[in-house]
């Protein structure tokens, strides 16, 4: 086993810890930009995992996927989000409905929950258990951010984190879907973020704020 193999396996197993950390930090973050950076870092960790997988599996397609993720999630989307923030010129707070301190505690609880949840369902896949727990934790944290952060951009971020979680789950369980499907998914993601950006502008233009919890004209 070469040094690279060892590194790849190490990355695969230890990445989970980093992902938990990013999730916790995101829950504790007060500014949107912090979250964007954290997301970029999280995506970078994911990219590393993809490359490690590709290396272990000797799959050229996986390299391509890794490159794509790097391009889109680590560079493209964070950059676009930061650009959006500058252009929208709105307050940079995340718009908490649950305080950041409490959020961290709840997030920790969710991580524990994800561990136990994975235990409940997938007792037979011990090797990927940690990674899968991380995936579930990401999904939960994404969901948590979307539910508790009222700024439009934070919802986008929450969605991205959630998507990261799903991506990770796919990665560790199936070692990747067919290539064309992966491209399609990423393409959808990009368009989705683009559209959300468009709507963010429109919300700002029509309501002069970006707080989605105040979009409550349509109800009942």
């Amino acid at each position, binding site marked *: 086993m070469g040094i690279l193999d060892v590194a790849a396996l190490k990355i695969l197993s230890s990445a989970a810890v980093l992902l938990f950390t990013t999730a916790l930090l995101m829950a504790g973050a007060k500014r949107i930009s912090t979250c964007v950076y954290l997301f970029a870092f999280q995506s970078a960790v994911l990219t590393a995992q993809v490359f490690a997988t590709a290396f272990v599996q000797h799959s050229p397609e996986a390299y391509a996927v890794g490159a794509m993720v790097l391009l889109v999630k680590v560079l493209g989307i964070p950059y676009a989000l930061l650009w959006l923030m500058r252009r929208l010129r709105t307050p940079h707070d995340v718009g908490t409905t649950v305080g950041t301190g409490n959020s961290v505690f709840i997030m920790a609880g969710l991580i524990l929950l994800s561990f136990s*949840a994975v235990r*409940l369902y997938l007792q037979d896949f011990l090797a990927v258990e940690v990674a899968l727990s991380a995936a579930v934790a990401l999904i939960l944290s994404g969901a948590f951010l979307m539910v508790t952060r009222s700024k439009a951009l934070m919802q986008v971020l929450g969605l991205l984190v959630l998507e990261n979680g799903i991506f990770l789950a796919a990665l560790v369980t199936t070692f990747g879907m067919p290539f064309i499907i992966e491209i399609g998914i990423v393409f959808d993601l990009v368009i989705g973020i683009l559209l959300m950006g468009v709507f963010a502008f429109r919300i700002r233009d029509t309501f002069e704020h970006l707080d*989605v*919890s105040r979009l*409550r004209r*349509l109800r009942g």
Partner: protein
Amino acid sequence: MSMTEDPRVMIQFGFLLCLTGLLVAPLISATMRRSTSARRADAAFIIGSLLIGAAVGAAVLWHGEAADLDLSRLAPFALALKVDRLSAFFFFLICTVSAPVTLFSIPYAQQHYSEGRATWFWVLLPLFVLSMVVVVTAATGFAFLFGWELMTLLSAALILLEGDSDDRRHNAFIYLLMMHVGAAAVAACFFLFLGQASNLTFEAMRSAGASLTANVRVWVFVTAMFGFGMKSGIVPLHLWLPRAHPIAPTPVSALMSGVMLKTAVYGLVRITFDLLGGPAGWTGYVVLLVGAVTAVLGILYALGEHDLKRLLAYSSVENIGLIYVALGAAMLFAATGLPTLAALAVIAALLHALNHAFFKSLLFLGAGAIHHSTHTLDIENLGGLQRRIPVVGVSCLIGCCAIAGLPVFNGFVGEWLMFKSLLAGGELHAIGGLPVLPLMIGVVGLVSGLSAACFVNVYGISFLGRPRTPQAHHADHTPRAMQVALVFLASGCVLLGIWPGLVLRPLLSLVAIIIPGAGTPSELQLISHVLPVLAGSMVALLLASLALPRVKRLTDTWACGLPELSPRMEYTASSFSKPIRSVFAFVYRSDRKIEVTPAEEPYFPQAMSYRSARTTSFEKSFYRPLVDTVIAAAQQLRRLQTGNVQVYLLYIFLTLVCLLFLLRFSR
């Protein structure tokens, strides 16, 4: 055998002709020139189709040759019509009564509607009749429900055609809603057969009927009772009836009250006797008691009304109650193995249905004629019409006598048969030692006494005495078509009253089918013989007494020496019924309010106002809370739709989490 001699071919041909006629008539109405003569031709076309239908009904009733029409190939579900004897009876009823009603409609539509509306009226009316025909001739559940729902829709459309004020709209809404709920129950009743039957043709249901489990049978009966009861307006499901019937166009009111209610009776008979293969004993008691309550409350409510059409609507409730009493008795007899008595009671019910169709549509049309002449339907504003519109007056008098169940008019025959079958119930085992059936004689007696009072009131106040308002004083002439329609129905009432044997014999052969083993009740023979004799001697004696020479002189009515009686001194409908209403005050629960001004000097009033409003207690204590509960539940649910997208997301997450937990623990 040649085509003309084979009754089966003729019947089949006639049936198709009638259906086609009713289907084509709306097309003609919609497309033809809008002239009076064209309208008349159209109406004549409809009447012709109906008369053919009546002939077919009578022929099937007589010969027992079934006509049928199978459209299953066209439709996704079995869709077939079949006229067996039971269907034929109701088919006959519908056609016979609809024909004069259509005739009546010609002047009615001319007077009430603009050209556009008249076209709609002539499109909807034959379709409404057709839908009723479909209901009673349906041979599959699908066809039945198809017709059943259309019947509601078309009648509601006709109601709204008459006008669309808020009040009318609200009543039409109540009608539609309650009918839809009833239809849902009827649908459930049919669907319940599906546990055993492979499909919903009546044949399959019939053969499955006997093998249904006891529980399912109970539910079939309960849903049938609820669904058909809703349509026929049994208490407390009658709420819609006095609201919807009065606001329909008068010919349609006549059809709704006289004919449409009977489709529910048909349904109940079809389900309990035919498809279920015989009723259970307890169902008989239920129907009996429901019928008794309905009859008594119906006539008491009728007594409290002075709007002619509302009064007639409540009286329909009463008559439906009587029909249910007879049906209940029939069920009891059938369940206890007394088929001949059951046959007697079923005949009583069916005959009363036919009779009611005649006199109720007669009276509704009479009300329409009154409205035509005086532009009012409030009895309090009428009076003295007998001298002004005598044909209408005499017809209505016959109708009133018939509906009060007086002898030598048709209403009596049904009630008499009812009495006889109830009396025979003295033989029966009774619950807790109570001879329930004979006791029902008292109920029927009370009801018929009250209805006599009610219709003395109706006829006496509106046709007799002095005109209470200028409209009544200057009542217009009644058009010829209206007169013919009224006279036709009135003579039907008299004919059936004097010569009931005319329908009793076919009814007997009908009943033999749905009640196996039924013999011939001797009562049928008896009444067929007695009534002609009675009527003959009565007429002879009347003529003899009238022939007595008299010297007559016109005077004024005695006014206790005062110079003149003003119409305001006359007894009104409300004052007439006051004694009865005060005896049965607990039924009415009216809200009374007396205001005296000035309030501080009650003994020296300058003005007093008295207001008495009656809401049926069912509405207050049952329907309102029910509707309020639904709305309150909806309002609560509405709060879940907060408008906050974060909460929406939470719902999705929670759903997912719950499902995952469920999956985990369901293993």
